[in-house]
């Protein structure tokens, strides 16, 4: 009897201890505690490396100085105009890539002759470092919007095209069979069968296309025709203002994160729409 009680008490104590241990671990494994300490670690190491005299102070951009130069960059009269230029270039270039890429992807997937004729070259261009021809594009097309748009489209279009193509190729053959049994026209097949089944792949293409389109935007603005935030990076570079340069780079990071958030929302919306279908 006594031993039984003792055992129960011991077990309870054990359980309490276990629970307490779990609570401590719980606080430590809180993702935000972990993330904030990692941030502190990274910023601390960066500050020590850049601010500790190991890097020539002219070129050093420790986080403390980057943070204090945010107001300077944002109030620079060039900033808002540059930001709008960049957004405009990206939106135009990405819009063209989306329309052209989707159309070409569907076309290649549905027309076997075009598929055989063009697919090897599409894949080849996708694997090539396309920014290599930026100086040539600039020489041919001049310092105009057209040259910059070509660069953005060249980078953004291929992931959209290739993923749409894959999605359209993966169309359930049964659906195609039913469509042709009901004598659906080619246009109807495209609109009601092929395109809807390509949409999940298309979203993947959009995600990759957004990332590459942003790279194209920066390349176009720095190496083709100076303007926008891409040029603002160089502008601060000429003044050896490293902190301000980093602030502008962080603007691009922020843009990339916002865009990828939007694409993720699109992805969820598409998934829900497909389930309810």
């Amino acid at each position, binding site marked *: 009897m006594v031993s039984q009680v003792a055992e129960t008490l011991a077990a309870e104590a054990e359980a309490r201890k276990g629970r307490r241990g779990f609570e401590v671990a719980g606080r430590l494994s809180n993702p935000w505690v972990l993330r904030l300490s990692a941030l502190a670690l990274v910023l601390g190491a960066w500050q020590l490396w850049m601010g500790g005299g190991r890097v020539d102070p002219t070129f050093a951009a420790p986080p403390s100085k980057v943070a204090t130069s945010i107001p300077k960059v944002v109030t620079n009269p060039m900033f808002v105009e540059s930001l709008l230029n960049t957004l405009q270039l990206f939106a135009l270039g990405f819009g063209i890539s989306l329309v052209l890429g989707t159309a070409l992807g569907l076309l290649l997937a549905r027309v076997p002759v075009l598929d*055989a004729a063009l697919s090897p070259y599409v894949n080849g261009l996708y694997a090539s*470092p396309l*920014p290599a021809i930026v*100086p040539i594009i600039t020489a041919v097309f001049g310092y105009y919007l057209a040259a910059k748009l070509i660069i953005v489209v060249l980078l953004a279009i291929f992931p959209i095209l290739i993923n749409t193509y894959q999605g359209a190729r993966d169309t359930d053959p049964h659906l195609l069979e039913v469509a042709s*049994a009901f004598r659906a026209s080619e246009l109807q097949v495209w609109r009601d069968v092929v395109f809807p089944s390509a949409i999940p792949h298309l979203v993947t293409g959009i995600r990759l296309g957004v990332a590459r389109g942003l790279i194209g935007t920066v390349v176009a603005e720095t190496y083709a025709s100076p303007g926008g935030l891409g040029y603002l990076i160089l502008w601060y570079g000429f003044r050896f203002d490293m902190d301000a*340069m980093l602030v502008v780079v962080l603007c691009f990071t922020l843009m990339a994160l916002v865009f990828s958030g939007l694409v993720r929302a699109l992805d969820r919306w598409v998934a829900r729409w497909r389930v309810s279908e």
Partner: protein
Amino acid sequence: MMAAGRGRVTPRPGRTRWRRTAIAAATAVGLLVGWQLAAPRMGTAFELPTPTSTWLALVEMARSGELWTATKESGLVLLVGTVPAIVLGIAMGVVIGGLRPLDVAFAPYLYAFYSTPFVALIPLFLLVFGVGFKGKVAIVFTLVWLPVLLQTIAGVRDVDPRLLEVGRSFRASEWRMLFEVRLPAAMSLIVAGIRLAVGRALVGVVVAEFDTAFSGLGAEIFRYSQRFRLSHALVPALVLAATGIVLTALLHRAEHRLERWRRVD
């Protein structure tokens, strides 16, 4: 077109492939001839490159040795930057992917860094590390390290639980599990990371060489474009394209080979 819907007769694969190759080759010939005929008629103030002028430029640049010098410079940057980046990326990825708290802590920053259009950082790198060989190697290193790291983390972390279960039931130690289960299962993802990384590294080298305009394939492209000698500018771009295509194809093949380590069946 409508045939696609009706029970399509699948032609013998050998013949389809032959037909596809023939169509692709015919397209290439058509594009080259069209380019050759159209380029001089575009009415530009300078000479647009044609296939023949590009070929002549290639022969000239190869004979004089400048193409080889530039290729060697860019290739050396790629090699010196890539190899240690892959090693460090995999090593760090194994540690972070194996320890969940580290993954939770660092993942947001790694992904934010990965989302940053890296070309925006190139001027900064060149100012901090110098515009020469060292700066370019630093760019390539960073560009390669990050995707390899992220893919290794994902590969080591998301191993099929059934594979791990088999390992545990044979009482394998964590070390053996790491080297005999987790890493082999992660290999195809790691190679995919290297494939992404190589594409990024090629872009990084070229863009950095535009900035310095001093040596390497990117500098050649930049200098010849500035003088409107576009046939000569196209040659190094073609070398880079060929490098990208060949490396991507090889790594793609390796990826498919390694894919079977991930599957349980």
